[in-house]
């Protein structure tokens, strides 16, 4: 398979090079407020990952048999979520059906459901036309992500690092935090499930 790989702390992801080249750096996206530096980082990481993937890598967590056989799917999800977060302040990003599809139908996170999330994305996209200051939410870049601890229901834990790179790009990025959330594997895809809390 013609692939590039993105190395994570304890695992790796593999995604189609063609898809990256065409969708990830599509001219339409470039026209939006894309974080080009972050993209370059991903590209660089992908190159490094290609080398390391030959040495073998993987999660330390004991996944369920079904999920364990879908490392590619894990990595695809991580790459797609990473990519989606990078362009979520653009019209294309906000209206991307494929990004919204990264959220499970039963997604629930602090009271936020998938329908509410979809509505929120749509409202942000609409608001962009009304004000050049919008959308105004802080961006976050995802890195060193991995999926582990899958249970028999194919509910797993996504662990990753989020950081904001607007100003602070130092090695000890002062916004970098490690987070976990739940993801679910079904219908051949991983999707975000949220923390399950209603408020």
């Amino acid at each position, binding site marked *: 398979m013609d692939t590039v790989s993105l190395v994570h702390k304890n695992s790796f992801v593999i995604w189609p090079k063609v898809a990256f080249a065409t969708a990830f750096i599509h001219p339409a996206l470039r026209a939006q407020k894309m974080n080009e530096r972050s993209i370059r980082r991903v590209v660089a990481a992908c190159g490094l990952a290609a080398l390391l993937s030959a040495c073998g890598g993987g999660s330390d967590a004991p996944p369920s048999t079904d999920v364990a056989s879908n490392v590619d799917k894990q990595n695809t999800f991580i790459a797609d979520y990473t990519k*989606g977060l990078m362009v979520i302040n653009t019209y294309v990003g906000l209206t991307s059906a494929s990004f919204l599809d990264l959220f499970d139908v039963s997604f629930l996170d602090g009271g936020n459901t998938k329908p509410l999330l979809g509505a929120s994305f749509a409202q942000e996209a609409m608001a962009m036309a009304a*004000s050049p200051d*919008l959308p105004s939410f802080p961006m976050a870049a995802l890195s060193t992500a991995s999926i582990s601890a899958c249970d028999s229901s194919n509910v797993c834990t996504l662990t990753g690092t989020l950081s904001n790179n*607007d100003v602070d790009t130092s090695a000890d990025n002062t*916004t970098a935090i490690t987070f976990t959330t739940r993801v679910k594997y079904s219908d051949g895809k991983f999707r975000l499930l949220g923390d399950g809390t209603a408020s």
Partner: protein
Amino acid sequence: MNNTLRLRQTALAVASLAALLSAAAPELALAADKAKTKAAGTYTTGDFHNHTTCSDGTLSIKKLVDKSVGSSAGAGNLDWFMLADHGGGSARNCTLSEDPFTPVAPALGLTSSDTGPYPPATYPGGGQPASTAKGPNQSWESTLPNGRAGILGDGTATPKVMWRWQEIQSFQYAVMEAESRARSKPMWVGLEQNAPGHEHISTTVLNGQLPWPKTGTGNANLQAQYEYCFDRSDSDTSRGVTNLWDCTVQGSGNNNANLDATAKKITGNNSASTPNLGHLKILEGIRWMSEKAPNGSIFVPAHLERAGLYNPTGSNGFNIEHLRNFNNAGPRIAFGFESMPGHGAEINRGSYSTNAVGGGTFGGTGVYAAEVGGVWDALLGEGRNWWFFASSDYHSRGSFGPDQRETTSDFLPGEYTRDHVMVRSGAASLTAEGIIDGLRSGNSFVANGQLIDRLSFTVCAANPALPRAANKALLEKAATAAVSKNNEVRIDGCATMGEKLVVRPGSDVIVTIALRDPVGTNLSPYSFANPSLKQIGVTQPLNAPVLDHVDLINGNVTGYVDPNNLAAYAGAWTANKGTPAAVNPSTKVVKVFDKSGWTAAADGTLTMSYRVSGVKASQYFRLRGTNLPANLPYETDANGNPLKDFDAAGNIACSDAACPAHLTLAVAGNKAGLAVGAKTSSYDVAAWADLWFYSNPVFVEVVNSVKVAGVR
């Protein structure tokens, strides 16, 4: 033309002043600057309201500066300092230093003496007596090389009084410039203006002055001219003698038509025959500043409740319409108030009597800012850039001298109250211009008794694509990091104090707060248990306060009030929020954070956040915090609001053996049932016991809702 008649016509014209001011529409506001366009900054501490013997203070310039920015025991160690003697004049020469300059090391229990020798005694409350033939209480007339002849302008008294304009221009500035450079800290000359039509206003006109790190020879000519032209107490008509000043304000018929032919300034004030003339004159002063030094001037009303309500025929206080008028006349210059007065250790805290608006201070703050939903919130509810400040107003330590640690009157600059002001480009390149920019920006907070010494306060739009917990954690991490570096969060989509966040209708916003309750002791000389907390069995050293809780206060923004709508624009403060023009009914405490709701780090950093879902209306958030819990007898009500400080007077025992001798004693009939003759928490002890901090607001502007027009 008959001058009196002309003034009367002018006074009548003041009645329609509101209509004139309506032309001062705010600039179209923008959202907070993008993170990358904000220069890195640092919060710095300073004081801009204090006095020497060149007005009614007790210290020399040099000693006041040393006590403010120096690091001796009890000194403020401030990053910057603005000298602000009163306008008018003084017979005393504040450029002469005390001799010896530091007679003893500051400490509790020192002995002061009018006659010395110094040391072992130290100076008394009034400073080094002139009778010693040394020090700043000596007169200009007796100490200038050419004596009385060296004192310019009008004046017949003996010793002759020197007008403040001459003190500033010819004497104070040179000393301040030298002190600034010697200490490598920005320090410059301002003025506590005796305001026409009102009481006092802290002002400065920086242009021409060259404090550190500037080099070359500067001058305070514009500051001196402002004093001559617009200070109520400066009745000199000499035009600054060889200065030949003319107080014309370009394009201002109100001002220029009323200039006295000789003095070339408006010489009248509020009076029975010329009501409101003083207020008109002070507005002209703001316009003059805007013309001469639009970026180098500040105009901050001081202790504005103290002198009571506004009086059109006298020089008393300020009603809300005057604050609106000031801000309309010069939003870049008149951008806030000192509703937290100095004089924090007086028996009548803040030097507020029961005749003050509100009947006294509330936790050391005047009612205009202390009352949730009151005057300050009314101004913020318009979306105005109107910020909260505090200063020492240092004159003396009452019955104690400057080297004694006790005080029955004032705290030294930085000893008790500090303005923490964001200055961009960092402390390494701190400039007076940067400090004034920081004051103007509203990116500042005030803390008493070092209750907190660092603060990051932001409102950010929520990123809908992130897990909520992760979004919260990222913003809290950024805030904590900012506190660790004493700087601010710079993230697109976040606004901090003095800024506004623009969001779409229905957005969620996250309020994130990190602050530092510093480990160790503050500058209080007392280590016995806080008497206020001791009432409820809490033993906490007076010099090691602990933050009890933080109130997150929220109010709606409904837009600027039209000056022609007098019912909404003008009105004297009344109890129970009875004046529609002076209230914001939407304002409330929306969240109380305490130890159960914040994350504490070993260095005293406390981090907390609060999510607001589905924001529909433009609004603002501000903070206050205290070391006192809600419902503390004589200190706070059930909702945590500060009670009137007079309520506490004489009702809280100071029973520790170390309670100092100068405290007031309980009298018969005290509400707390204290034994007659028992020491009570009073003077400096009462102030150290009751600490507060106030942040400036962060605004949220909802697209297609009300514009927050006064704020970037």
